[in-house]
């Protein structure tokens, strides 16, 4: 049994040590390929291999199988019918009966015939060939190193001088240089925009008119520009609420009245706001992104101007109008003829600067006191956003204020209720003015007080 144990432990130690040697030689191979001197790595590898031999010997000895386990292996290898293991297990019985004594004698008799050196030979691990292959590779690499020096730096040097590689990589290099030049051009463009903005700021000191006192078409244009500015901010900030960030001081600067100018002005005002609040420390990439957004918004506004001229936008949407444009037109125009006759909103909201509504064309919720302006001043996408907000409110079960109207659109399209979200001075409810309530919560508050009054 001792002989069997020695051989089992020796085989286990050999297996563990070979694994350690393989790992060490692999690391040594890398070191020889990279380093200029191989003396240090070789000495270190020898030390590691020696230490690994000791450590694996200790590990193999402490994880050696028990006597019962050894007996089972011996039974299995020598086909002894579990005689040895049974005898080992019952060896500690103090007073064995006749059968146990006979079993022990039988086991010892069979054990004497067993040749442990034949059953458990000292054999190399099954993956020993890996060690040989690694040693061969190490010898070849050492020979190469002694003649040419370290392999990897030499290969890198050769690769750098190789014409084939240069030909191979030249289109890629050209593409990289082109990308760099494009980036530099964008950075210059951003710098030019910043310069223009600073010049315009010095020309227009920011005297802001008080909010809530708009007059005439200037106020309407300002509101439209404000909405466009918030839309531009939504595009730039990806969902940041527009009302909280749009400074009111930027509104008077955009009095030209055309949507394209309003959008350009809003984008410029956003940059001005960021620089004024100390957040203008943008990186080159951010500036380039901002410049691209400006260009895109300019192009978009140009398309809208060409597609929605005042003459065409004043026409009611017909059955042929589709998708977003028809929806936006219906929400702004409210082309239901009898809604104006009902007069649900115009009397209560007053009229200041509205144009005379043409029956069947310019009637609807937007006419009257609301700052909603002619369709050419309002971005159709924004109108669509407004309608979507109201649809979302309806989905929560809220049916809307009683004075609101619905607009009929062409058959097959959706009916989109209108909601005026612009700041309005409405009659006080229970002593509280609605100016202090944010517009988005105004209808809720009003509805709350109406229900609480009941």
């Amino acid at each position: 049994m001792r002989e069997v144990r020695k051989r089992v432990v020796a085989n286990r130690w050999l297996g563990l040590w070979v694994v350690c040697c393989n790992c060490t030689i692999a690391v040594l191979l890398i070191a020889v390929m990279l380093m200029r001197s191989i003396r240090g790595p070789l000495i270190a590898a020898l030390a590691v291999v020696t230490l690994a031999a000791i450590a694996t010997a200790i590990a193999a000895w402490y994880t050696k199988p028990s006597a019962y386990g050894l007996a089972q292996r011996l039974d299995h290898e020598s086909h002894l019918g579990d005689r040895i293991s049974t005898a080992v297990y019952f060896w500690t019985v103090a007073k064995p009966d006749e059968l146990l004594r006979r079993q022990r004698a039988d086991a010892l008799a069979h054990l004497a015939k067993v040749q442990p050196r034949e059953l458990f030979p000292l054999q190399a691990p099954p993956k020993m060939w890996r060690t040989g292959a690694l040693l061969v590779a190490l010898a070849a690499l050492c020979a190469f190193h002694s003649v040419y020096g370290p392999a990897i730096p030499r290969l890198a040097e050769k690769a750098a001088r190789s014409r084939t590689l240069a030909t191979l990589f030249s289109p890629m290099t050209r593409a990289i240089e082109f990308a760099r030049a494009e980036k530099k051009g964008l950075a210059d463009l951003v710098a030019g925009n910043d310069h223009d903005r600073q010049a315009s700021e010095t020309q227009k000191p920011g005297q802001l008119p008080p909010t809530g006192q708009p007059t005439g078409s200037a106020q309407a244009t300002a509101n439209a520009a404000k909405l466009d500015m918030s839309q531009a901010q939504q595009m730039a900030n990806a969902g940041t609420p527009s009302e909280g960030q749009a400074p009111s001081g930027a509104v008077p600067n955009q009095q030209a009245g055309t949507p394209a100018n309003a959008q350009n002005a809003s984008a410029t005002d956003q940059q001005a706001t960021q620089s004024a609040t100390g957040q203008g420390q943008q990186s080159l990439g951010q500036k380039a992104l901002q410049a691209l957004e400006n260009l895109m918004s300019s192009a978009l506004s140009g398309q809208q101007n060409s597609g929605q001229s005042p003459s065409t936008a004043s026409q009611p949407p017909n059955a042929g109008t589709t998708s977003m444009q028809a929806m936006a037109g219906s929400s702004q125009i409210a082309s239901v003829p009898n809604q104006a006759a009902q007069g649900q909103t115009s009397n209560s909201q007053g009229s200041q600067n509205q144009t005379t509504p043409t029956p069947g064309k310019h009637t609807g919720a937007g006419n009257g006191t609301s700052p909603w302006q002619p369709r050419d001043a309002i971005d159709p996408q924004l109108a669509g956003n407004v309608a979507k907000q109201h649809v979302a409110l309806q989905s929560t079960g809220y049916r809307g204020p009683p004075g609101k109207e619905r607009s009929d659109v062409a058959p097959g399209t959706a009916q989109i209720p209108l909601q005026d979200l612009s700041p309005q001075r409405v009659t006080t409810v229970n002593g509280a003015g609605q100016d202090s309530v944010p517009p988005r919560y105004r209808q809720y508050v009003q509805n709350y007080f109406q229900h609480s009054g009941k």
Partner: protein
Amino acid sequence: MKKPAISTVPEIESVAETVALVRAEISKAIVGQNEVVEGVLIAILAGGHVLLEGVPGLGKTMLVRTLAQTLALKYSRIQFTPDLMPADVIGTTVIHENGDGAKTLRFQPGPLFSNLLLADEINRTTPKTQSALLEAMQEKQVTVGGVTHLLDEPFLVIATQNPLEMEGTYPLPEAQLDRFLFKLRVPFPQRSELHDILDRTTQKAEVSVNAVLTGPQIMEMRRIVRSVPVAPHVQDYVVQIVMATHPETEANSVAAKYIRYGSSPRGAQTLMLGGKVRALLEGRYNVSIDDIQALLLSSLRHRIILNFEAHADGRTPDDLLEEIAAKVQKK
């Protein structure tokens, strides 16, 4: 009173010799069928019952009759038929008239009261009559009219059944099957064996079998058998085998796919006791895994119930048990 566990050396050594003598006597009348004979002898020494299954004419009844002659035991045979009643097997109470004219009720023992009972064609009788054997096979006693009658030891039931002509038969219930230690399949004899059979049975020479083993000797051998030591890893192997026959033990296994109910603990007891007997008959004093593997099919094939998928795929209990044993061996 607990019997002493010490066995004298001559008794231990005599087990294998005596069984060899029995084999020699049986071989005078039975040609071949070595595995069946060995299984029957192991069951006798382990104290269990045997179910022999085979087509007619293979010598099942002949084997049991020869065994009874060899063992010098009280032998009785019951031919099970559909109209057989439990009282016909167990016995009944009859009116007995004394010499003075007084009439009393007296229990008339049935053919069950013997040492070696041959239950021929056991699957041809009704389950009610089949169940009459339950108490006798497990507890070695019979209760009639509120009175329990103990059976003589050793008591051994060797039943036969025919796998063909299943019309009008009553397959044994699971509880009845579980009481059989082994279910042995009687194979068709080989060519040379068939020649021997023809020579022995078609000539004038009569075969005489001597009794070489008595009932008390069998009981003493049973006591010795239980003293055979078993190493823990062998016992663990038995447990693993029995557990592996249960479908709920391991998912994605053969048992989970084809077995509806696995072996009962009696299966493990059978493997262990049979392994001890086989070890002694092989000249060893300890149970080996080889003994367990040798007795695996005969011990467990009637203790597992296959599901519909197994029947549809044509799988047999022997196939599944061999597959299970191979997987357990790999562990």
